[in-house]
């Protein structure tokens, strides 16, 4: 019986978060409808941004990516690609495409420890582009190197396989400018680009993915970003800003010691550290989500890659929760300590175990006494319907504010796959998460021999 209540409580909480999203959606819709980004994007008064693009073995996609990033609708910014000791030709394709030369006397102002930098490349014909070549040290290490070299007060981390919409950055900057002192981090909306028509480094025609793995993820992302993060952002309780696209105040990122090296989950880690820092210094702050700033990413479309990705997420989530357990139920950390962290531990990190034990108990119960099959059925229905309701809710949010998918058939497809998600995909998600936890515990035993994770896959994550 407990499990049924657990499921109901979890879902009521989800609904509450989504309710907050609903409260905000009209404002979001209006502000994106009535804001003219054209005048802002030419203005001298918009803060300058350094885009940091860590790249590890990205020779195939990096050129298109850099072109995309160099044509953003933004007044002053620079693109810093950090080649993290790639073993392929990432660096040389960049050098030959953009005619780059090694800078003989680069100024590196930052003091965060990173792997040794081998050189910085630049071509005056492309004044906003810099390439840092450094020894392999992982994604977080690359971001730190980028921070050390960057010239501007805001930084934005962008995955090398993601495409930003032309207005994405200026939309975030508008949000920043409305509250510049308190805004420490802003996350963007990540969407799945599989199936869309991509031309000239931009998504030209939006449609749903044709393969099933990306299709499931598409709905999952919609649910997580629109249904969840808008609500969390409203409470200032966001626990993660997607690594694929986020904007940060450089001074605070440095104040918390930059990104953490080695392990996955560096995007969640930096946000928790920022929360911690701001709250313990009693500074007013906000970590916000900007759903109108969109970044398109390529979703993994095979079982192997997606399971790896999810296991890594599970591992990262668990690690971050354990490392920051001190914040749990600590009134000093306000919303973060009292709501977000407990919520994450109970309903995200531990969720798989509750569900599985609950299911096993119920099944055992039913096996003992077949007359209770109705309870089992109720349990399944409860799970399915509440989950489906959340999906429908997220699609409605999308329909109110963004309407990226134009066709009626897309709507049917989304509704169908939202239902199919509960047959198989959902269960796999639970499994992957547990596998991730097991991985983490194993790694923990061999703490000394920390193997470096190649993050070719990392960059595919959101």
């Amino acid at each position, binding site marked *: *019986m407990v499990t*049924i*209540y657990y499921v*109901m409580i979890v879902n009521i909480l989800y609904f509450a978060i989504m309710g907050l999203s609903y409260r905000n959606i*009209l*404002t979001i819709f*209006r*502000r994106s409808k*009535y*804001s*003219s980004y*054209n*005048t*802002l994007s030419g*203005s*001298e*008064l*918009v803060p300058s941004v350094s885009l940091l693009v860590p790249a590890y073995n990205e020779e195939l996609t990096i050129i298109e990516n850099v072109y995309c990033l160099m044509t953003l609708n933004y007044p002053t910014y620079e693109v810093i690609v950090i080649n993290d000791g790639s073993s392929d030709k990432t660096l040389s394709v960049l050098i030959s495409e953009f005619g780059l030369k090694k800078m*003989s*006397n680069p*100024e*590196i*102002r*930052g*003091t*965060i*420890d*990173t792997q*040794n*930098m081998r050189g910085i490349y630049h071509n005056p014909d492309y004044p906003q582009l810099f390439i840092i070549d450094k020894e392999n040290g992982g994604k977080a290490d690359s971001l730190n190197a980028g921070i*050390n070299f960057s*010239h501007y*007060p805001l930084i934005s981390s962008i995955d090398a396989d993601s495409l930003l919409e032309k207005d994405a950055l200026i939309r975030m900057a*508008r*949000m920043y*400018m*409305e*509250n*510049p*002192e308190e805004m420490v981090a802003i996350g963007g909306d990540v969407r799945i680009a599989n199936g869309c028509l991509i031309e000239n480094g931009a998504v030209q025609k939006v449609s749903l993915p044709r393969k099933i793995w990306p299709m499931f993820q598409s709905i999952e992302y919609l649910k997580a970003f629109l249904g969840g993060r808008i609500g969390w952002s409203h409470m200032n309780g966001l626990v993660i800003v997607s690594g694929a696209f986020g904007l940060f105040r450089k*001074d605070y990122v*440095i104040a918390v010691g930059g990104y953490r090296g080695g392990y996955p989950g560096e995007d969640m880690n930096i946000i928790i550290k920022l929360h911690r820092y701001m709250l313990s210094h009693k500074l007013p702050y906000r970590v916000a989500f900007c759903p109108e700033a969109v970044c398109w990413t390529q979703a993994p479309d095979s079982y192997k890659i997606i399971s790896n990705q999810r296991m890594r997420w599970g591992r990262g989530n668990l690690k971050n929760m354990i490392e920051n357990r001190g914040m749990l139920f600590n009134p000093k950390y306000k919303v973060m300590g009292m709501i977000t962290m407990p919520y994450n531990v109970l309903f995200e990190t531990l969720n798989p175990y509750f569900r599985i034990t609950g299911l096993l108990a119920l099944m055992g119960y039913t096996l003992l006494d077949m007359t209770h099959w*109705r309870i089992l059925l*109720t349990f399944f*229905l*409860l799970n399915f*319907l*509440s989950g*489906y*309701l959340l999906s*429908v*809710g997220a*699609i*409605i949010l999308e*329909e*109110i504010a963004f*309407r990226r998918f*134009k066709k*009626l058939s897309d*709507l049917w497809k989304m509704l169908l796959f939202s239902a199919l998600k509960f047959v198989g995909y959902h269960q796999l998600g639970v499994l992957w998460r547990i596998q991730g936890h097991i991985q983490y515990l194993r790694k923990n035993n061999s703490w000394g021999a920390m193997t470096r994770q190649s993050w070719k896959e990392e960059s595919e994550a959101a």
Partner: protein
Amino acid sequence: MFSHLIVAYIFIYICLGLIGLGIILLLQMKVSHNKEQHRREMYEQKHHDYFKYIQAHLEEEGALRLPPGKLKPLERKVIQEKYMEWIEQFKGDYRARLIQLCRDAGFVEADLKALSSVSFGRRLDAAYRLGGMRAEEAVPALLQMLQKGKYNSLSIIIARSIAKSAQKSEDVLEMLRILLSHGKPIHHLAADIMLESGMDASGLLLKLLDDPDPALVKVGLVAMWGQAVPEVMPVLGRLVGSEEKDVRAEAVKLYLSSNPALKDETIVHLMSDRNWEVRAAAAKALGPLHAAGSIPLLVKALQDANWKVRYNSAESLAALGEAGFEALCQAALSGAGIQREAALQRIELVMELEQEHSAIEQMVAYNKKRLIHDRYFGVKRKPVKRMTGVAAVGGDYTA
């Protein structure tokens, strides 16, 4: 046991009901939106010739005609949006003529009426469009709307409408005052909004700089970047002595960026200011000034705790001819720590940059510098091997 199940059943029924409602709502929204989209396209097609007519004759004297025939509400909306798009693109007579067209078509009147609607959505919609049509008569109502609402992103939309429509500088000032009354440091945003005004910028700026409220003064200062407004220079001179830390820093930066002639004592004063931004701006300004007394000051500033000040000082020294360069070399050789780093960095940059130039005059200058350089460091291609790697100059991230 069964009472528990009943709770679960109720939950299930509620979910089912909501799902049903949600799906119906979704379909209804999608269908009606697609239909509207379709009709919009149709109307755009229908008025294609009319739109061409307007664009071809904006220049000629005489009133432009309104679109022919009786118009449906959505049709009017399509046309109004088109007018507004043009208004945003054009300046001067063209814009004025289109605004007149909006008035003639009754668009302004309709939106003024909508401004007192019960629904907030309609009011905001009207506010946005009135700004787009530069409707001066809407300003008082808009100001009231801005005053009443809480500060959020929607206030910015109303504020922009006021800035666009206002014909009196008091209205713009009032709008800025309301915007800044929430205590958020949104001076850059406020300045950007202010610059949307169709009024003469220099008049507005003068008023802002003279305002007793330091927040408004700051907006004025921020807005002046990128605008050459000679009229305000005297006011700036006064603000350089301001008590407000931020105001002073901004004013000094602006004042110095116009390359004024400085007295020696002013220079000394500025170079020892407590605010690093002021020191950095002063160090930067000394380069092009060619004041003889500035070299020792700059050498001293090479030891400044702030990176930007050191950087600018080294840059200015390098710009001060052979004497400056010699001082730089001396600092690099005899100085220590951060001073040495800053000097060396600049020397390397100078040597490298000037190698690329070919003009004879610059060759002469370069050769002189080369001589000085070699005297200090010996004849080597690179001066002194610096530690490569990270953390070369020490930390500062404010810029």
